[in-house]
């Protein structure tokens, strides 16, 4: 009988609304969790390949000596793609007057295994991404080499003993940052031509690179195979190293999505608890009747347990389907912006969804119903015999712990979880304090006010306990919604600030001091604005407090201080966009041997404020004291430096200058003239990367918007079920008021006041909670700067009051639309 009865109850109860809210909340929680986690795990694989582009492969074996063929054979046997590269500095000669020191990179067919090699026919011509590598007998030159060597397309140049035909210009290599062979401009050639050049002799400075690409398992098994065979001078580079910029953006987006998912779960569990509580309250009487008719406790428990199980199963299935759709939507939205086709998410998200549903049902839906079985049949005789308390403190505790556990498991970050929990705790503690103070003090204020206010405030007070709970739940829901909106908009603002429309999009390096004026004149003539010129000297940190640091070994472990090389600069004032986090900045005329370190660099060499570093520039060694530590915004497109000195300390060393500037797309030909005027400077074209980043950011921001609206919907669900939780009492009271002669206007007025006051208080609490959580998230998780959001303190209360007021009055609209008789009969 139970299954039929539970089906009947479920279908009948549908009309009353709690079950639909419960199901909706469950579907929402499951779908957001499933959608976000499958999207994120697909994104993860895309992110990995994104970083793979910076190696041009999934992993690279680097060696000073040629590889044994066995390694290549082994890689190919494992189903991996391989490509060989050789890099070394050498001379390129056009004729007796035109020769240059170049950094040669010889590659084989198939290069790059990841990312794109961008090249063009003419030095600064249209960029081509397709095509392969220089054919045998051909070379591609860095654009400025054309000017340096005074060659054009179709000319021949000599590398060692080999004569090679110039057929193109190298514009961007995926592994430009990781495969550096000397400082000269790039010359790209085919690896087959190397023997003909005859330049590689025993003892030459050569780097051999074996690029390997393929699926992750094969790559890691090959890595395991090769690592024990590595000798002195050989190492493996893998892709967990440097995080690219786009990866950074996606990474934060991922953090945001996981946060959103966790909040969805919290909101859904609140909605579920409220709905289930009300369901349970209304069913106390049912159970009493069923019991008086002879139903036993376990039959009651089975009845409701089964109902929940059916509901849970439906919710899980629907949730998974919707979640899959959400994830598919994201992928379509981001589409071809993702560097490679995103991988499969596998079954893990579904598994997460099922666990989420189970936790929601078990810890939030079930406790209010579990005790129904214990209801006394006596309450059919007397209304004052309810079940003692539908939920006990340990239920709340268990529920709270389970949600924290779920959040943590799900977003994998203790910091995110703690930030949200801290905000929620603030809301709860303040909430119950405020409820005490304000609701109980309310009557006194009401005493002076008009009669509607008096009725409303005494109503608030009479249901003080229920109202406090309701207010805290409203506040939590509002807080989570505010929090997510704030985090989202500050992420988007930050992303966009990182790419302002007028940001420099080219870097210029290697400008000799005597060329400064030439450059300034040139840019003035061309109408190009240029940022400040920064002096730049290559140097090395040797020791800290006279204790010598180990040289960077073949294998570098994180956290162990080691020698580092960096570009040094001098500056009279703190460089723009830098933040002083320790120490003080020097005066312009300070001549003491001092320096300022960038945060992470200080960590790398293991130095702190007041330590004395021994440094080397060229052949000269000198000492300087760390006078300050800076935080640098690496996202900005300005020149940034790890080590900064006072002018008088660094100026005596020879150095070059660097700067950045902005070119519009139609100004591109300026670069051709620039390299003919200043043939030795290096120009890095960032605009190509920037354009790509901008589209990614726009799309990601769109995806976040989508998730945010789902969260707002869950929040609204909580508010609705919160309002509904007090509906019976309010309806009955209002109906009685009307039956006793109160005009509809008065009844409606009281309702408005009650809900507006509740909403405004909840909104204020929410603002406090949001401030705490946003601080924790922005400083601890998203690496952003935090400042109090003043607007919160009026947006919170005002939106709270309006939303709760409108929702509340709307839910109670029947009070004035129906006759008191009809109402009293119902409740």
């Amino acid at each position, binding site marked *: *009988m139970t299954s039929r009865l539970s089906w009947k109850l479920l279908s009948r*109860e549908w009309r009353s609304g709690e079950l639909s809210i419960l199901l909706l909340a469950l579907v929402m929680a499951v779908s957001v969790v499933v959608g976000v986690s499958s999207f994120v795990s697909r994104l993860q694989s895309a992110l990995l390949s994104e970083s793979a582009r910076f190696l041009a492969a999934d992993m690279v074996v680097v060696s000073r000596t040629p590889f044994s063929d066995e390694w290549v054979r082994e890689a190919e046997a494992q189903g991996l793609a391989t490509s060989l590269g050789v890099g070394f500095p050498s001379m390129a000669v056009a004729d007796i007057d035109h020769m240059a020191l170049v950094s040669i990179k010889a590659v084989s067919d198939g290069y790059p295994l990841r990312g794109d090699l961008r090249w063009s026919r003419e030095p600064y011509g249209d960029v081509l991404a397709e095509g392969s590598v220089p054919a045998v007998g051909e070379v591609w030159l860095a654009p400025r080499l054309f000017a340096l060597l005074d060659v054009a397309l179709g000319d021949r140049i000599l590398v060692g003993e080999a004569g090679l035909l110039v057929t193109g210009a190298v514009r961007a290599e995926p592994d430009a940052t990781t495969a550096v062979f000397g400082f000269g401009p790039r010359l790209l050639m085919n690896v087959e031509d190397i023997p003909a050049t005859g330049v590689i002799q025993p003892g030459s400075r050569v780097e051999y690179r074996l690029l390997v690409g393929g699926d992750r398992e094969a790559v890691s098994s090959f890595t395991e195979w090769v690592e024990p065979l590595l000798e002195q001078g050989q190492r493996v580079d893998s892709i967990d190293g440097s995080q690219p910029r786009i990866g950074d953006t996606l990474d934060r987006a991922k953090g945001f999505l996981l946060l959103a998912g966790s909040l969805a779960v919290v909101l859904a569990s609140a909605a579920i608890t409220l709905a289930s509580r009300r369901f349970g309250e209304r069913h106390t009487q049912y159970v009493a*009747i069923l019991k*008086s*008719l002879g139903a036993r406790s376990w039959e009651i428990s089975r009845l409701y347990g089964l109902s929940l199980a059916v509901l849970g199963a439906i919710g899980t299935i629907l949730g998974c389907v919707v979640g899959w759709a959400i994830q598919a939507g994201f992928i379509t939205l981001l589409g071809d912006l993702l560097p490679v086709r995103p991988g499969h998410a596998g079954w893990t998200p579904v598994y997460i969804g099922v666990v989420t549903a189970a936790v929601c049902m078990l810890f939030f839906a079930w406790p209010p119903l579990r005790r129904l079985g214990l209801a006394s049949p006596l309450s*059919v005789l007397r209304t004052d015999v309810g079940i003692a308390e539908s939920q006990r403190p340990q239920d709340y505790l268990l529920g709270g712990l389970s949600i924290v556990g779920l959040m943590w498991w799900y977003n994998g970050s203790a910091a995110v979880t703690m930030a949200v929990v801290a905000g929620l705790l603030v809301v709860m503690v303040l909430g119950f304090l405020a409820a005490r103070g304000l609701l109980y003090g309310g009557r006194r204020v009401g005493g002076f006010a008009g009669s509607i206010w008096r009725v409303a405030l005494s109503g608030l007070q009479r249901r003080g306990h229920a109202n406090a709970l309701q207010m805290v739940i409203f506040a939590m829901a509002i807080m989570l919604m505010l929090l997510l909106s704030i985090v989202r908009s500050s992420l988007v603002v930050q992303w966009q600030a990182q790419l302002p429309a007028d940001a420099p999009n080219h870097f210029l390096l290697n400008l000799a001091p005597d060329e400064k004026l030439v450059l300034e004149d040139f840019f003035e003539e061309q109408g190009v604005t240029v940022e400040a010129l920064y002096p730049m000297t290559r140097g090395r940190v040797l020791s800290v407090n006279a204790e010598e640091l180990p040289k960077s070994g073949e294998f570098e472990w994180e956290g162990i201080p080691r020698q580092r090389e960096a570009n040094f600069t001098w500056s009279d004032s703190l460089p723009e966009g830098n933040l002083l986090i320790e120490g003080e900045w020097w005066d312009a005329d300070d001549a003491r041997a001092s320096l300022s370190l960038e945060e992470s660099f200080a960590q790398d060499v293991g130095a702190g404020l007041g330590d004395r570093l021994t440094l080397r520039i060229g052949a000269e060694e000198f000492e300087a004291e760390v006078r300050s530590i800076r935080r640098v915004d690496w996202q900005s497109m300005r020149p940034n430096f790890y080590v900064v000195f006072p002018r008088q300390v660094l100026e005596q060393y020879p150095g070059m200058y660097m700067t950045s500037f902005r070119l519009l797309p139609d100004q591109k030909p300026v670069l051709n003239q620039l390299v003919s005027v200043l043939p030795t400077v290096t120009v890095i074209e960032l605009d190509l990367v920037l354009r790509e980043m901008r589209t990614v950011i726009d799309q990601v921001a769109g995806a976040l918007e989508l998730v945010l609206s789902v969260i707002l919907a869950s929040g609204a669900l909580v508010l609705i079920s919160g309002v509904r939780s007090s509906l019976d009492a309010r309806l009955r009271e209002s109906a009685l008021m009307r039956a006793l002669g109160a005009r509809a206007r008065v009844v409606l007025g009281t309702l408005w006041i009650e809900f507006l006051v509740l909403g405004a208080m909840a909104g204020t609490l929410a603002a406090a909670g949001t401030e705490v959580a946003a601080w924790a998230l922005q400083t601890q998780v998203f690496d952003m700067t935090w400042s109090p959001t003043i607007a919160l303190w009026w947006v919170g209360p005002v939106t709270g009051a309006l939303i709760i007021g409108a929702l509340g009055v709307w839910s109670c609209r029947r009070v004035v639309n129906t006759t008191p008789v009809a109402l009293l009969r119902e409740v």
Partner: protein
Amino acid sequence: MIKVSQLLKTVSTADGNLDILCGIDLEIEPGASAAIVGASGSGKSTLLGLLAGMDVPSGGEIWLDGESLKNLDEDQRARLRAEKVGFVFQSFQLLPALTALENVMLPLELAGVNDADKIAKKYLVEVGLGERLSHYPTTLSGGEQQRVAIARAFARQPRILFADEPTGNLDTRTGELIIELLFDLNDRAHTTLVLVTHDERLAARCDRCFAMTAGEIVER
């Protein structure tokens, strides 16, 4: 058979302990009909609730059909009710989410009876509600709800039927109809009837009549 000895019921209230029942002794043989009359607040409903095993006494003992309620727990008393006891509440107690028919079917389904809907329909027709089978309780008048509650109690053909003012909300004609039904059941199935009533005609038709005053009972 119903037997009650030295039944006490005390509740604690804000103003101290309140004795509602002060030592009730009672014996009603199987198949008999008994009426309990008395002023409002004299403890009639309380006694009936105790007899049906829906509450536990503060002292004394109750036997239903030879079985003492004393050593039964909540669930065992529920099983006893499911098997033997019907109850008509003073305030009807219908499930608002179920239709009239479904309300009547409920105890039959709980007992696992086949043809629950046929039986339920038959009883609803008997109480004159054949036309209102699919109506929900909120759309029925007080008297109609009362009749659904009576049909629900009859449908299981209980060995003992408790009814708390079964005709309280009914007009004379319908009241008489219900009284006929009650005694018909009493005749045909030898159901023991225990009725709380203010209706003198109903009390007069019962084999026995008890009067309650302030928690004490005497037979008239």
